[in-house]
């Protein structure tokens, strides 16, 4: 019973906040709605008993969204002063959203305690073994049965990295502005860059 209730709560909030992502006028608000959508999706994962994926959703996506947030803030010219002006006016609304999130947390935990929703699988072969946690099951598959694919995924990321460096990195000639001398950078010691000063009271510091 509580699971069904929690499912509909999370599902409707995912859809609602996903709609708001594209409806919101302010891009920063869009990003915040996106975070809410991810949190609720993680809640859905908890309900089906996949805690590990729920954790990944929160850690990876919310981390990615933080980067996205930076991009939005840097690339778009947003007037933060204007946004702050409405802070007091929107304060009750903010409290309401926080309360809803808290309620969700509560409902989710209770539903999780009551046992996960049983999803239909074609046969039992894909189901996790009893007494094995999610993380163990994923790890056993990833580093056991699918270790080959895991390595291939590593190579794919390596190629992406090579590509990004090859296409953007420019070696500047010696003496030119922006020339990077890695040896010099590594040889640099704290003593070269910092000086300890004990300034007397009432007098300035000479640099």
């Amino acid at each position: 019973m509580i699971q069904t209730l929690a499912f509909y709560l999370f599902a409707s909030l995912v859809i609602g906040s996903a709609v708001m992502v594209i409806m919101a006028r302010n891009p920063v608000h869009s990003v915040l709605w996106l975070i809410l959508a991810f949190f609720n999706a993680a809640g859905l994962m908890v309900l089906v008993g996949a805690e590990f994926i729920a954790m990944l959703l929160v850690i990876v996506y919310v981390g990615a969204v933080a980067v996205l947030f930076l991009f939005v803030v840097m690339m778009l010219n947003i007037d933060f002063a204007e946004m702050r002006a409405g802070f007091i006016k929107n304060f009750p609304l903010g409290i309401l959203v926080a309360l809803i999130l808290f309620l969700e947390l509560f409902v989710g935990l209770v539903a999780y305690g009551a046992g996960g929703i049983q999803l239909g699988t074609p046969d039992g072969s894909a189901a996790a073994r009893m007494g094995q946690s999610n993380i163990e099951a994923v790890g056993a598959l990833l580093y056991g049965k699918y270790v080959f694919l895991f390595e291939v995924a590593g190579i794919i990321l390596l190629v992406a990295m090579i590509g990004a460096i090859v296409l953007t990195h420019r070696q500047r000639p010696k003496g030119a502005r922006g020339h990077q001398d890695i040896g010099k950078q590594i040889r640099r010691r704290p003593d070269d860059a910092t000086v300890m000063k004990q300034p007397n009271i009432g007098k300035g510091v000479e640099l």
Partner: protein
Amino acid sequence: MNLDISLYFTAPEIGLTISGLLLLLVAAFGGDKTARMVTILSVSALFGAVAYTTNLLVNPAFELGGEAWAGIYRMDAFGSFAKILIYIAAIGCLIVTPRFFEENGGYRPEYAIVVLFSAVGMALMVSAVNLMTLYMGLELMSLSSYVLASFSRSDNRSAEAGLKYFVLGALASGILLYGMSLVYGFTGSTSYLGIRLALQDGLSMGATFGIVFMLAGFAFKIAAVPFHMWTPDVYEGAPTPVTAFFSTAPKVAAVAILTRISLDTFGENVIVWQQIVIFAALASIVVGALGAIGQTNIKRLLAYSSINNVGFILIGLAAATPAGASAVLVYLTIYVAMSLGAFVAVMMLKDAQGSQIENIASMAGMVREKPLLAWCIFFLMLSLAGIPPLFGFYGKFVVFQAAVQADMIILAAIGIAASVIGAFYYLKVCKIIMFDEPAGEVGGESSMANWTILLICSLVISPLGWILTSPLIALANRAANFLFFVI
């Protein structure tokens, strides 16, 4: 999972990956001056992979093939055949590279390394018997291709090509992945065998959608109409050695995987995909033939020619018989020789200052200045048009033969009619280089490596190529039979 067997079967890919990683260290410590050495070492690594794969292909101990890594990878004659073709195409493209980049600037050791990783991805694709392996290989290949397309950083066209390829390719990968997820959702398995068993007695609406989406994704990768729009722009903008690579190795891999998926995984549901493949085949032939007529840039013309050729290959697939699959492999082999030869010849078209000529009008009457090069282009064009006694004719012949044997006479007839339209622009190029007033623009010297590759390709497509027919068809038949097993 037997680790020894698994490592033994995947040794070519693992070896290539390890050599790629080692060469990456050489490149990182040695800098740009190691570019030529890294390229040479990559070529030798690829030669090693060819030798090893040939052993797996001809060794009677492995005649039946075998599975590796708990059933996500399969070593069989079909995969080995396609892999050898892919590796050889990559070797050809790497050999002609150094001179091009040394003349046009921007030569870096990472080029050869990215080609190596791309070859690994393609090898995984064609050996995959699981949708996950397939997608991993495909992404490895695609990511490397995006980097290669924009490798000439100083050239705006190259950057444009890379960006277009990246955006459209990512979209196509997404569509493919969506199709795969639908198929997985409605069959409950990602392994080809599991999907085939689940689809044995009819398929649901969702699975049909999945198949259609997957075919759309593959059609993009092989540049079949209606997913061909990116081809001319990318082929024109990318540096010519990269274009030569795009038109050979990734095309072989994508066609091979499409053949395997259609005939093996969806082998019980031919009726679903056959009409799509027939449409794509006819549309590609017609659009490829008509689109090429107005082109003034030789690379764009060859891009349309590759669209046209993919259409002929798909006719063989549409037949859905062992003969058709074998015809696809034979056509691919000949196509690799023709396409590689044509792009190497384009690379050798230079003016007196050594800068590249891509305009068809500038090639006018070049037979006076560069007789051997002109004759090579002449024969390559006639072979692409499929005129006997050149070897290009044989590819078209087997494809149409397979279609006729499968009672697809109308399909074959339309294909033949459209190939006559296609012959027009090939003959136009021949006429311009042979009989027009000399424009006197072609000059400059080409390296030994370019001549070697060009002459090898020309020999293969010349009437001497017919010597290859019997071993080629025997191998292709053996490879194709692996797709038609009874469960």
